[in-house]
C-alpha cells in the first residue's frame, strides 16, 4: 500500500528525505486513512513525529510557538496554552481521546481540510506558520498558507516546523460551536469560532471564523466590522444573520447540503450573541 517508513535522525535529513519525494508522517490519523481508502500511494513516509524542532512548546514575550508534531492532547493539557482558550475549545472537539492522542497540530494544518477544527482557532489568532525546506526557512500567515481543500503553500521538500500564536490584546471572549450530525467523533458540518472584545455589553472588536462552509476557513470581515459598536444581544445582531449567510460558499456533500450550511452559518451568529449575553 505504501513504501518504507523512514525515521530521519534530524531535521536536515528529514528535509532531505522529503525533498527526495518522501511524505511527512506525523500522527497518521489523516494520512493512513487516505492511504487505506486508496486515495494516495506515497512512495516513502518520513516520520517527523519525534524531531526536536517539531516538538517545541515555547512561550516568548510575543506569543507561543507550538511544534508541528505536538499532539492535540498535549496542547489541551499544557498550561502554556492557557492564554489561548479558543485553541483549547477547538482542539477539544477534534475526533476522540484516542485520535487526539495521536493527531498533531501540524497534521491538522497541512491536511488543510475546510473542516479542520484547529484551523478556526489559527485563523482567529492570526497564526504564523514556520516552514523549513531545502532553500531554508520562511514564514506564512495561516490564511496565506492554506490555499484550498488539501492545498497549502508548501513547496516541494518543505516541512512545517511550528506554528506561532501571537498573544492577543486584552481579554476577548472565546466562542466555538461545532454543528455536526452527532455529538462525539464527528466532522463538522458548520462551525463558528469567535474572539469578541467587550466593553460592558458593547462589542468593541470581533474576529469571526467559519469552518466547513467554503474551500478554506472564512473570516467574514464585513460582519466583524458591523459588529463593532453593537450590543452583545441577540436582537442587536439579528440583521447581520443574512449578511453572514451571504459571505460563505458552501458545497453539498454526504454530510449536509449547501443550503443548510448557509442557513446555519447565519444562525450561529445568534447563538454567539446568546452566548455573550448569558456569559455571566
Amino acid at each position, binding site marked *: 500500500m505504501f513504501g518504507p517508513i523512514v525515521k530521519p535522525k534530524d531535521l536536515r535529513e528529514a528535509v532531505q528525505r522529503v525533498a527526495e519525494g518522501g511524505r511527512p508522517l506525523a500522527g497518521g490519523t489523516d494520512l493512513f486513512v487516505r492511504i487505506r481508502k486508496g486515495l494516495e500511494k506515497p512512495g516513502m513516509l518520513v516520520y517527523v513525529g519525534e524531531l526536536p524542532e517539531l516538538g517545541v512548546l515555547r512561550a516568548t514575550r510575543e506569543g507561543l510557538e507550538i511544534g508541528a508534531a505536538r499532539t492535540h492532547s498535549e496542547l489541551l493539557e499544557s498550561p502554556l496554552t492557557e492564554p489561548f482558550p479558543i485553541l483549547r475549545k477547538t482542539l477539544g472537539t477534534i475526533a476522540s481521546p484516542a485520535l487526539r492522542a495521536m493527531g498533531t497540530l501540524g497534521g491538522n494544518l497541512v491536511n488543510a481540510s475546510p473542516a479542520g477544527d484547529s484551523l478556526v482557532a489559527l485563523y482567529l489568532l492570526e497564526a504564523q506558520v514556520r516552514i523549513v525546506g531545502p532553500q531554508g526557512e520562511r514564514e506564512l500567515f495561516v490564511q496565506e498558507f492554506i490555499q484550498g481543500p488539501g492545498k497549502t503553500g508548501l513547496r516541494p521538500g518543505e516541512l512545517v516546523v511550528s506554528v506561532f500564536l501571537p498573544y492577543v490584546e486584552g481579554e476577548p471572549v472565546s466562542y466555538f460551536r461545532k*454543528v455536526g450530525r*452527532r455529538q*462525539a*467523533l464527528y466532522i463538522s458540518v458548520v462551525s463558528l469560532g469567535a474572539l469578541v472584545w467587550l466593553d460592558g455589553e458593547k462589542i468593541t472588536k470581533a474576529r469571526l471564523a467559519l469552518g466547513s462552509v467554503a474551500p478554506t476557513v472564512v473570516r467574514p470581515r464585513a460582519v466583524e466590522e458591523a459588529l463593532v459598536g453593537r450590543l452583545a444581544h441577540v436582537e442587536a445582531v439579528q440583521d447581520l444573520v443574512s449578511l453572514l449567510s451571504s459571505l460563505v460558499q458552501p458545497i453539498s456533500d*454526504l454530510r*449536509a447540503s449547501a443550503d*443548510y450550511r448557509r442557513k*446555519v452559518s447565519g444562525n450561529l451568529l445568534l447563538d454567539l450573541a446568546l452566548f455573550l449575553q448569558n456569559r455571566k
Partner: protein
Amino acid sequence: MEAQRIAVGKSVLKLDALALATGQPKFTLDLDVPGCLVGKILPSPHAHAEIVSIDTGEAEKVPGVRAILHFGNTERIPYTTAGQGWPEPSPYDTVLFDRKVRFVGDRVAAVAAETEEAAEQALAKIKVEYKVLPAVLTIEKALAGGAPVIHDEADCEGVYDPKHNIAAAVDIPVGDVAKALAKATHRVEVSCEIPYFQHAALEPHCVIAYFDEDGRLVLRTATQVPFHVRRIVARVLRLDPKQVRVIKPRIGGGFGSKQEVILEPIAAALALRTGRPVKLAYSREEVFVASRTRHPMKVTVQLGADERGVVQALDMEALSNTGAYGTHSLTVLSNVGSKTLPLYNKAQHLRFHGKAVYTNLPVAGAYRGYGATQGYFALEVAMDMLAEKLGMDPLELRLRNHIRAGETSPIFEKIGEGREGKAQVVRSCQLEECLRLGAERIGWYDKRRSPRREGPWAYGVGLACAMQGSGITGIDMAAATLVMQDDGTFRLLVGATDIGTGSDTILAQIAAEVLSVPVDKIFVYSSDTDFTPFDTGAYASSTTYVSGNAVLKAAQEVRNQILEVAAQALAEPVDHLELASGRVVSSKTGKALTLQEIGHRAIYVVHQRQIAATASFTCPESPPPFAAFFAEVAVDTETGVVRLERFVAAVDCGVAIHPKLAEGQVEGAVVQGIGHALYEEMHFSPNGRCTNPNFFDYKVPYALDVPPIETILVPSHEPTGPFGAKSVGEVGINGPLPAISNAIYQATGVRLTRAPFGPQRLLGALKGRR
C-alpha cells in the same frame, strides 16, 4: 408462590464474562486451523446486470490460488439465505452463484487462496463481461408498469409475483375498516418511513470450514441459527447432513444479521472443492453492502376513534423494500401488523395489508424488532396525532385503548409467521404500570403542561408504547439435555444460541433454580449440532421463553430422578424427600444425601444409571412483553440539532431471570433505536452504490450522544413462562423512533415522519412551517 429463590432473579456473573474480559480466543476467527486457505468474494460493480462471460484463466495463474467458484462451475439450487424453521417461509430466489447480479456487491465469484494477497490478486484478474440492465432503486419504480424484472429466473419458488417485483404480499381484513373509518368521530392518517439501517454488530460475518479426522465438514461460524445452517448448507451443496457439523463459538453480536446463511455455503463449497480448510470473513464494507439490513419501509396508519378516544378502526399498510433478494420478506412484513395491532385491541375493524418489493439495492433481512419497529413508528405517531386531535393527554389515550391481561385480539389468530397465527389470550400485562412509572420518572405531566424554552432551544417530551412476542407460536422448538455428573455437578447441553445476550447464563440459572444448586455447579455447552439437541436459534425473542422452558422441563425430570435415586439409597418414599441447598433431605427422618453422594452412587455404586433427561418445548403461544418509552429532547431551532436529554424505558418482561442482562437488552435495543431516530442512514449513489459503507460516514450513536437510559423493569408473572419470564431482547428497539418524533413535535410543532431526524431535515421542516 414466590419461594426463596437462589438463582432466578439474581444478576449472577455471566458465565463467559471472565474469558471475554480477559480476551480469551473464543470467537470464530480466533481458531487457527493449520493449512487454512483464505476465501474472498468478487462483488458485482453493477446494480443490475447479466453476466455474459466470466474468464478466470489469468486469475488461476496467480500463485497460491486453489479454487475459483462461479456460476459456470457450481450447481444451481434455488434456496433462501433466511435461517428459519421448516417449511421455510422465505422465497427460494437465491443460488450460490447466478448468471445475473442484482445489486452492487452481489456475489459474482469466490476465490480460495493460500494468502489474502493472492486471493485479492486473483479477484482483480477475474474478467467478467456484463450486460448492464436498467436498475430499480425505489419501491415506486419497482412497482411501476414495465419496470425491469429483477427475478426473471425460471426456477425461483415462493415469490408472490416475480413479474411485478413483488416478493411477498399480505392483505388481512377484520370487520369493515373502511366503513368504520368513515363513521369514526375522529380520524388521523400518517405515513412514516425509514431508510436502510445497519445492524452494526461488532463482529463481521465470518466462518471457518474444515474437515475433522473422519473427513466430516465442520463449520465454525458466527451464526444465530446453527441448526438451520446445517440443514441449508447440506441441501444447497447436496451433502449428507450427517456429514456436516456446525459449531457456534462466542459471537460478537447479531441483532438478526446472523439469522442468515450467507457465507457458510460459500466457505463449505470452497473447502469441498479444495479439500482444504477455508476461512471466509466479510470486511466491514462487505458487511454494510453484502450482509443484511433492516427493511426500509413506508408504513401508513389510519386511525378512527369515537368521541371518547377509543380506537374503533385501524388500517395499516406497509410498503417494504426487501432489496435484491426476498429473505425474511414475508415474515417481516407480516410482523409489521401482527406485533403492533393487538396492542390497541378495542378496535373491531382492522386491516393490515402490504407488499414487500424487490429493488436492486442491498438485501434486507431479519433485524431486532423484525417489522414491529417500522409498524410502531407509524402507529405511535398516529396515536400522538389522535391524542392531539382529541385534546387528550397521549398517555390517557393509551390507557383507554391498550390490551389488558385476560384479553385477546383477532390479529393473533389472523396473522402468523407468513401463515395464519393462533388465537391467544394475553395472560400477563403490566403496561398500565409501565406507563405510570415511566411518566413519574420523566416528570411527564409537568413537562407536557409547561414545556421549557431556552433561547433557541425548545424542549419536549414524547411517549410511545410497544409490545413484541416471545418466540413463534407453533413453530419455535427448543430442546435441552441435562446430565448429572459423578461429582454431583451438571452438564447442560442446549441448542440455544448465545450471541452475546447471556442466554447460556440465563439457562443455567433456570436449571440451577430447579436443582437448587449454585449456578456454578452447572456447566453449559451450547450450539453444536453434533453434541447439543435441537433449537431453532436466537431470534424472535425466543431463547429465555422457549429454550428456558425446555431447560425447566429437563431440570424437573432430572430432579425427579435424583429424588428416586435418593429414595432408594435412603430407603424412604420419594414424597418424604426434599431437594434443597445441594442436598436431598428426608422430612421424616432428617437423613440426608449430598448431590455429590447421589451422583457418585448412581454412576458407580448400585442400581447404576445415568441421571439425565432431554426435554423439548414447542412454543404454544407467544406471550408479549410490553413497554412504555418516554423521550425528552432539546431542539436547537437555529441549527436543527436534537439533543436527547433523557430516555426512560419501562418494560414488562415478566420475571427477569437476570435483571442486569434484561436491562442490558433494553439499553442496547434503545440505543440502536436512537441511532435509527437521530443518526443512521445508508446512502446510495444514482447507480445504487452505497456511499457510506463504514462507521466514519455512517453514524451510530456514541456515548456522548446517549443520555443514561433509565430502564425500569416492571415485574409481571407470565404463567406459561419459565419462572414467570417473557422475552426482552427486541421490544426496546420499537420505542425510540416514535417517542423521539413525538417529543420533537411537542418541542417544535414539527412532525417528523422520515427517519433519521437529522439537523438538516429538522431545520428544513422548521423553515417550512414558519
